[in-house]
């Protein structure tokens, strides 16, 4: 089956304001990616190409060499790099064999550029995330 499960993406705050059809359009852009235990999924400081949602397995999050968190099924990472093309702020390492669904900005950006409704809703989600971050 092509794409990521829609329900996995509906949990991501960035997509919170999208309806199921709109999430479905984005879900179809995702591709499965597998990692072996110990593989580096993303490296702190590198350019970011893709956003990932974990389908199965676990991953550890490290910043500056210090372990900060464990990610599990349903967790996601790298979504901001889809938009700002910035560098990765953490290293994520597969703690077990890991199955993710990922989308690159080459696939994501054209969809958003051609669909103003999705673009506007994403902007609103980002504004909420930003507002929450400022208030903390």
């Amino acid at each position: 089956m092509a794409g990521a499960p829609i329900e996995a993406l509906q949990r991501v705050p960035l997509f919170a304001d999208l309806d199921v059809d709109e999430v479905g359009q984005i879900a179809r852009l995702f591709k499965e990616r597998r990692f072996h235990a110990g593989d580096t999924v993303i490296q702190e400081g590198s350019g970011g190409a893709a956003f990932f949602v974990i389908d199965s397995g676990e991953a550890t999050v490290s910043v500056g060499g210090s372990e900060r968190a464990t990610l599990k099924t349903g967790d996601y990472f790298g979504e901001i790099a889809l938009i700002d093309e910035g560098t990765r702020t953490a290293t994520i390492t597969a703690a077990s064999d890991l199955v993710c669904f990922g989308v690159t900005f080459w696939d994501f950006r054209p969809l958003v550029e051609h669909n103003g409704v999705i673009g506007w809703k994403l902007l609103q989600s980002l504004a909420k995330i930003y507002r929450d971050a400022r208030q903390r």
Partner: protein
Amino acid sequence: MKEVVSLVEAADTSLFGSKAVGLGQAERDGISVPPGVALSGDIVEAVAAGEEEEIERVVAAVRPLGGPLAVRSSAVDEDGADASFAGQHLTLLNVPSWEHITAALSEIWWSANSDSAITYRQRVGLFTRPSVGVVVQALLDPDSAGVMFTQNPVTGADERVIEASWGLGEAVVAGLVIPDNYRIASSGEVLERTPGLKKIAVRTLPQGGTVEEQIAPELRERLCLDDSQLAELNQLADRCDQVYGPARDIEWAIAGGALYLLQCRAITRAG
């Protein structure tokens, strides 16, 4: 365009990448290469995306190759430059069979779309979407293999320099053995035969992967190429000069009594 063709038909670098077209050109010019197929960048992406119809097309093309397989990325040229970008030259040796081809193609697609590949592209000012074709070939189980320079890479002299060992060429390329060393004048005269110390051979495993096999003591310092094989290698060098141009770095293998070209690229001169 989502294309899968036999290697001899691969002629468009914008679809299949330079590695596939290079091997296709060799085959069109009568040079033996392991049997294989070329996949366009678009069909590789379709397989990575899980598109069932395209997966079936690829499986149907790959199944006749049997197993195991060598699956090599073939980066699509951009702006006429040699596409030697980080993460785009992933090669998967000893993929057990067609049943594993989807996973192999997914891994290759992601290597071309990885963070490191993107970082490199951003650094060199390339903001276009990468496209990676793939070459799938039957993986040989060679008696001997190695590398050949069609021009001396150190002195530039007009002679062939050959390094050879038992089994897969990985033993030579990865520096796992001291290989035999041969020099042949372009006329065919053998100028040097220096046996190496070949304690191991790299062999394929039926279930995938490779193993280092101990070589019998009496074979470790025995030359693994005879004069007729050296003559064939010299002829291969002549043909590669004609097809690809001078100063080539060739990977070759001898399996079942036949000599095959595995890869051919320009020499990077030492020093």
